[in-house]
């Protein structure tokens, strides 16, 4: 066989039917699956924190700072899967210095910067300022200076200033809720606005992404709260878990309804792409869509959460169930990202063929890299919890 065409035979062996030449290879791999997953965790964690603050849900208070720091840890990592996916990651900063007003992709620079610099950092800063001033006085050596720099050199903790901390923090939270919606709605828009792809192109996409983001963020904060309590050998408050579980239950119902609505709409409209999409979901996406996303990530958690709304028996059993549910929901949301990103590239736009996707293990676009970007936020979170421990904060009377 001619060496010039050798690679073509190998690639063509993985495709079925008629596909266009540029569809042989998937342009967006596993790291583009990780990116909306991580961004979703940020938006979801932040929205949970906002519930506590804006709606004054006292029970959720122990998770407030954990949720904010979780959002920050994942937000710091959110762009990195994109950067390692690029074949020229050293050029990633260019999106910031030469922003393009009419490119949906480039808008991420603005959305990200607004959310990181204006919303999340400010909210954390206002929340921790009093404690950081006190810690700067207590600590010695280098840590004294770290906290002093973090307070931006402002050591005023008079009652009047502290009142303003609360007022301004509340204001940022109120601004933050629509910002969190914009952050993840934007990610959905990136997919939903691609009109050439019938698997993506639906105005419901931003809303679907948003609700699945809330589901995943709430589960993640619940799991982190449980793990942190376990590591600190503190008993976790079952009321907190019940309360988070209740929110998770309601948001999961909304998420399931909207995604179901999208699919019913698709099935009833049965446009010209429908035959291909039907083959896609019954074939290559069967495991990740019906089993992983539908059954494991949605139906089972819904049933168990519904049961937990009524069952108020053994605390240990409830804790175990919440822990398992948290993990199942995260698996489900990750599968949803997979089904959208990878699924949308598996069928040919000719609607007459399919290509296939094999994840590489190594390299900038491989599984190990994806795993690394998923583990790194936990490292950052551990560091942030050490630097800004919520349980050592100065208690203020409201």
């Amino acid at each position: 066989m001619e060496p010039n065409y050798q690679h073509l035979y190998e690639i063509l062996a993985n495709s079925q039917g008629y596909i266009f030449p540029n569809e042989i290879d998937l342009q967006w791999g596993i790291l583009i699956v990780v990116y909306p997953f991580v961004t979703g965790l940020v938006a979801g964690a932040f929205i949970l924190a906002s519930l506590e603050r804006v709606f004054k849900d006292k029970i959720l208070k122990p998770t407030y700072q954990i949720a904010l720091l979780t959002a920050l840890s994942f937000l710091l990592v959110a762009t990195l899967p994109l950067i390692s996916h690029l074949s020229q990651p050293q050029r990633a900063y260019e999106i910031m210095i030469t922003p393009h007003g009419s490119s949906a992709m480039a808008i991420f620079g603005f959305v990200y910067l607004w959310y990181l610099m204006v919303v999340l950092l400010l909210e954390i800063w206002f929340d921790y300022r009093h404690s950081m001033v006190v810690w700067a006085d207590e600590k010695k050596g280098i840590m004294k200076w770290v906290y002093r720099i973090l307070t931006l050199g402002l050591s005023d903790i008079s009652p009047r200033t502290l009142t303003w901390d609360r007022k301004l923090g509340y204001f940022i939270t109120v601004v933050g809720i629509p910002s969190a919606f914009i952050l993840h709605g934007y990610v959905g828009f990136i997919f939903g606005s691609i009109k050439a792809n019938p698997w993506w192109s639906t105005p419901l996409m931003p809303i679907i992404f948003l609700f699945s983001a809330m589901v995943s963020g709430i589960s993640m904060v619940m799991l982190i709260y449980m793990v942190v309590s376990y590591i600190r050998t503190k008993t976790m408050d079952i009321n907190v878990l019940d309360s988070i579980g209740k929110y998770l239950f309601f948001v999961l119902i909304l998420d399931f309804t909207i995604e179901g609505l999208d699919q019913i709409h698709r099935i009833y409209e049965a446009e010209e792409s429908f035959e291909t999409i039907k083959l896609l979901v019954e074939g290559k996406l069967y495991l990740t869509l019906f089993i992983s996303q539908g059954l494991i990530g949605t139906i089972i958690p819904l049933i168990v959460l519904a049961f937990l709304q009524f069952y108020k028996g053994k605390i240990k059993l409830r804790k175990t169930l919440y822990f398992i549910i948290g993990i199942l929901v995260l698996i489900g949301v990750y599968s949803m990202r997979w089904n959208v990103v990878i699924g949308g590239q598996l069928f040919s736009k000719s609607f007459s063929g399919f290509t296939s996707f094999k994840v590489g293990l190594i390299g900038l676009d491989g599984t190990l890299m994806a795993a690394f970007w998923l583990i790194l936020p936990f490292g950052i979170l551990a560091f942030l919890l050490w630097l800004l421990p919520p349980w050592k904060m100065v208690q203020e009377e409201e």
Partner: protein
Amino acid sequence: MKFYIPPQLTRLALAFAIFITLFIVLRNLLVPDTFGQYGHYRGDSLIDNQQPEIHYSGQEACLDCHQEIEDMKQTDVHNTIRCEVCHGPGEKHVSSGDAADISKPDSREFCGVCHEKNAARRQSTIVQIRLSEHNTGKKCIECHNPHQPWEMKE
């Protein structure tokens, strides 16, 4: 009463001012000089794009020497297929004139890329056979001249 500005706000305004100034300075250093010369990209990238090595010569270069093959091709169904579709990039061969610098595919699998039975391909547009059944053991070019497929060899 004097208008009160919380000290946090002045401090944050200062921090943002420093950050924005730093950003503007960095941006001036980092944006390439020719950015925006023709559009939303670095003008010099056009020059960069002229640099890559040329691999394909284009059909016209082939015809300088092989016009008779083109005349033969025009009489049969492969008339719209250009030389480098099968022979691969030809610039090296054009400049060296060496026959070893061009690919002359002759395997059954190569013809099969287009002519192997595939339900998604129209039989009326591209004639298709099953490689596993059609005259197995023989090369396609033993009977078909690729430049004139229906003028069967004896």
